[in-house]
């Protein structure tokens, strides 16, 4: 597979969902089965192509290798922008995540959305969403990243509000869109700062330029925080996480897609991709925001009784982990968690969808005892729960462990222990609330006999994705951490020396450079795939050192220590969480209402999600309303005053003009008439009609003339 073939394959992966969207949008109603097979099939092809690229990069095993290609998109003299595709290890991983989850969600939706009035439209939107996300993943410039970023926002708007006849869904998609706009504002500012400073949107040209000639301190931090704001909005980080729980109003497959593969992953991917553009101060902000989000999400998830809401806060918490990983310098661990999380979180959402489909409620207190009724759903859900809780030998353990180790090492080297502690508490809480969910939903006695009686296992289109994802939830980690396992073949810290060496001296001036950028250097792909990594750079750190790209031996030592400590601690807190959950919800040794009754304040705060919505209602909304009122008052008083004043002035002037017309113009006209009439009256008397009098006038006139001329 040559570079050209890889680029074309990537392009095909990008365009297949778009094709699905276009066909289903315009022709969906006319196709047999409303075209669900088409959307699912095209996604299946995209998935296979993604696996092909994935396998290719696996074979090469060089995370620094990248293949770029593009065309000149815009040429406005000094300003040029290219539309390009970038494929490297991270892209390959993301392609597999996106297409796998999207494909399975398509498959699941065939059962779940069966009989919906806008069935074909749903599949069209799924295709559009997948297309937008793939655009983010494949873009090689900030400009197109931003374009697809906004397309994802639009697609999420369409899908969250898919049941737009429900007022809550209509409000939720508006909220998601507007909240994202707040983050995107900062994102755009960050992009503009970098473009203004370096004159290019291309990632790697920017990296090289920023590496050789960094922006002065404050501006770099500002730009980094700006970029991160985009992530805060898209990846639902505190304090802009409020849209995500409300986004549960969308159909459950959409939740799975948003939470596992597409929208929220975009922010994490963006930070990981643009990591060289963040300076240490910005990364500190990232670490703290991530840790706080992880903690907030986990604590709220504990008290939620709505299964999807609880999962939504779980997602917020896990995203906090990933973002924190970016901040504490273990970006590959964050990407690894994104990878494992995509599968088990999609599984959890689809599993909850299967449950909701069966019992027609989202309230866990109305469920219970579904284990025997829905065995496949139960076992797959349990596997996902074990994975997210961080039980050893399940995928989530390895990724979460790597993040916690990174956070601890960060704490030890930088003396910022808060992120690690928050993340550790969140890990324990995660185990607790996830098992609470399993126990409340599947174990014990049915609390609503009526619903339990009607519950049944879902059809194969729904259970097949569950089983597939369950397998992936176990094996996707490969039982090794991100820095020593197979994942290091795909994602590793950027090798700045190599990026700088590959960067063109100046931006290309030629019109079209379809030639892949990597073709210029000596690190071209070998034509024959073979297992050995093709080029192991001398500058590469040994994979075992993981993220210590710019660390020293001491740091490596700290990391090694941190790794063991973090692993032991994370197993301990996870076990503790599971134990407490078991004691509470299975054995009944701890009474949840009693505990909550003894902590009324805490319960109140958690039940109201830390009053974020109320806070925004009291500040942002109120300010907006007040400001709108002020603008309205300004309009009413000043603008309307000016307009009405102009009107009044015009009327007065018109009255004067009327006067002038009436008396001057009309007076002139009538005066002329009157004078002429008067003159006519006078001359009429001269014209008697008697020839003799005329003759008399003639005679006298002649006499007069004679005298006159005599006088002359």
């Amino acid at each position, binding site marked *: 597979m040559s570079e050209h073939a890889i680029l074309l394959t990537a392009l095909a992966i990008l365009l297949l969902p778009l094709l699905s969207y276009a066909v289903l949008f315009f022709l969906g109603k006319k196709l047999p089965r409303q075209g669900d097979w088409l959307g699912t099939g095209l996604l299946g092809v995209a998935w296979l192509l993604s696996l092909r690229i994935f396998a290719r990069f696996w074979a090469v095993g060089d995370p620094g290798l990248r293949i770029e290609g593009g065309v000149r998109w815009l040429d406005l003299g000094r300003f040029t922008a290219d539309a390009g595709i970038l494929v490297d290890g991270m892209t390959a991983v993301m392609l597999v995540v996106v297409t796998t989850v999207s494909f399975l969600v398509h498959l699941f939706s065939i059962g779940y959305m069966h009989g919906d009035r806008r069935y074909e439209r749903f599949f069209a939107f799924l295709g559009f969403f997948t297309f937008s996300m793939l655009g983010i993943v494949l873009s090689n410039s900030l400009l197109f990243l931003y374009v697809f970023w906004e397309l994802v926002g639009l697609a999420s708007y369409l899908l969250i509000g898919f049941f737009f006849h429900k007022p809550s869904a209509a409000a939720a998609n508006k909220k998601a869109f507007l909240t994202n706009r707040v983050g995107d504002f900062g994102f755009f500012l960050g992009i503009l700062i970098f473009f203004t400073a370096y004159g290019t949107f291309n990632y790697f040209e920017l990296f090289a330029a920023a590496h050789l000639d960094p922006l002065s301190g404050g501006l770099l931090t500002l730009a980094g925080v700006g970029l991160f704001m985009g992530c805060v909005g898209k990846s639902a980080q505190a304090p802009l996480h409020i849209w995500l729980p409300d986004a549960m109003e969308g159909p459950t497959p959409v939740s799975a897609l948003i939470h596992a593969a597409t929208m929220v992953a975009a922010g994490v991917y963006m930070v990981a991709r643009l990591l060289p553009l963040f300076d240490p101060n910005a990364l500190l902000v990232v670490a703290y925001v991530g840790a706080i989000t992880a903690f907030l999400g986990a604590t709220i998830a504990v008290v939620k009784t709505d299964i999807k809401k609880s999962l939504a806060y779980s997602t917020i918490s896990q995203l906090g982990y990933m973002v924190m990983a970016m901040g504490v310098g273990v970006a590959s661990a964050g990407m690894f968690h994104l990878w494992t999380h995509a599968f088990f979180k999609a599984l959890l959402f689809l599993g909850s969808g299967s449950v909701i489909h069966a019992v027609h409620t989202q309230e866990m207190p109305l469920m219970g005892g579904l284990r025997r009724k829905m065995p496949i759903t139960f076992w797959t859900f349990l596997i996902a729960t074990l994975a997210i809780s961080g039980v050893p030998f399940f995928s989530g353990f390895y990724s979460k462990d790597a993040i916690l180790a990174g956070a601890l090492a960060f704490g030890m080297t930088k003396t910022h222990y808060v992120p690690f502690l928050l993340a550790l508490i969140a890990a324990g809480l995660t185990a607790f609330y996830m098992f609470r969910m399993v126990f409340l939903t599947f174990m014990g006695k049915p609390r609503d006999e009526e619903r339990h009686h009607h519950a049944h296992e879902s059809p194969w289109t729904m259970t097949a994705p569950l089983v597939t994802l369950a397998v992936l939830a176990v094996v996707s980690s490969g039982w090794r951490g991100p820095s020593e396992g197979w994942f290091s073949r795909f994602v590793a810290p950027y090798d700045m020396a190599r990026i700088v060496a590959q960067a063109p001296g100046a931006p290309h001036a030629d019109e079209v450079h379809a030639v892949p950028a990597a073709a210029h250097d000596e690190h071209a792909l070998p034509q024959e795939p073979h297992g050995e990594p093709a080029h192991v750079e001398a500058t590469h750190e040994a994979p075992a050192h993981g993220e210590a790209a710019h660390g020293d031996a001491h740091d490596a030592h700290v990391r090694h220590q941190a790794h063991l400590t973090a692993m032991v601690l994370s197993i301990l807190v996870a076990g503790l969480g599971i134990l407490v959950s078991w004691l509470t919800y299975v054995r009944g040794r701890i009474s949840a209402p009693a505990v909550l009754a003894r902590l009324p304040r805490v319960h109140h705060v958690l039940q109201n999600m830390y009053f974020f919505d109320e806070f925004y209602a009291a500040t942002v909304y109120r300010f907006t309303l007040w400001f709108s009122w002020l603008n309205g008052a300004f309009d009413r008083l000043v603008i309307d005053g000016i307009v009405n004043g102009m009107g009044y002035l015009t009327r007065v002037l018109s009255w004067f003009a009327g006067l002038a017309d009436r008396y001057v113009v009309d007076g002139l006209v009538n005066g002329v008439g009157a004078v002429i009439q008067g003159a006519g009256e006078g001359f009429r008397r001269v014209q008697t009609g008697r020839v003799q009098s005329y003759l*008399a006038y003639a005679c006298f006139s002649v006499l007069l003339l004679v005298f006159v001329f005599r006088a002359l």
Partner: protein
Amino acid sequence: MTVGLEHYLTVSALLFGLGLYAVLTRRNAVALLMGVELILNAANLNFVAFARFVDGGVEGHIVAAFVIVLAAAEAAVALAIVLAMFRNFGTVNVDTVNRLKR
């Protein structure tokens, strides 16, 4: 006392004045025509007098002869009009014949 140019001109002026007076004051169309004859004859007298005393040629006499012919033609035409007028309106008073004015 010799009869000079001024005597002729005085008689002529008197004739003209009488003729004009008749033309301006008479309401009878026939009397009016008679006034016109007086004016024409006053002019004739002038022509002849100037021819005799100033010019010495015969052009003035010739013009006078023409004017006499013209006066005869004019009288014929005018009397015909007066006859037609009388036939139409039953009067020769020029003041009552004013249909065009209305």
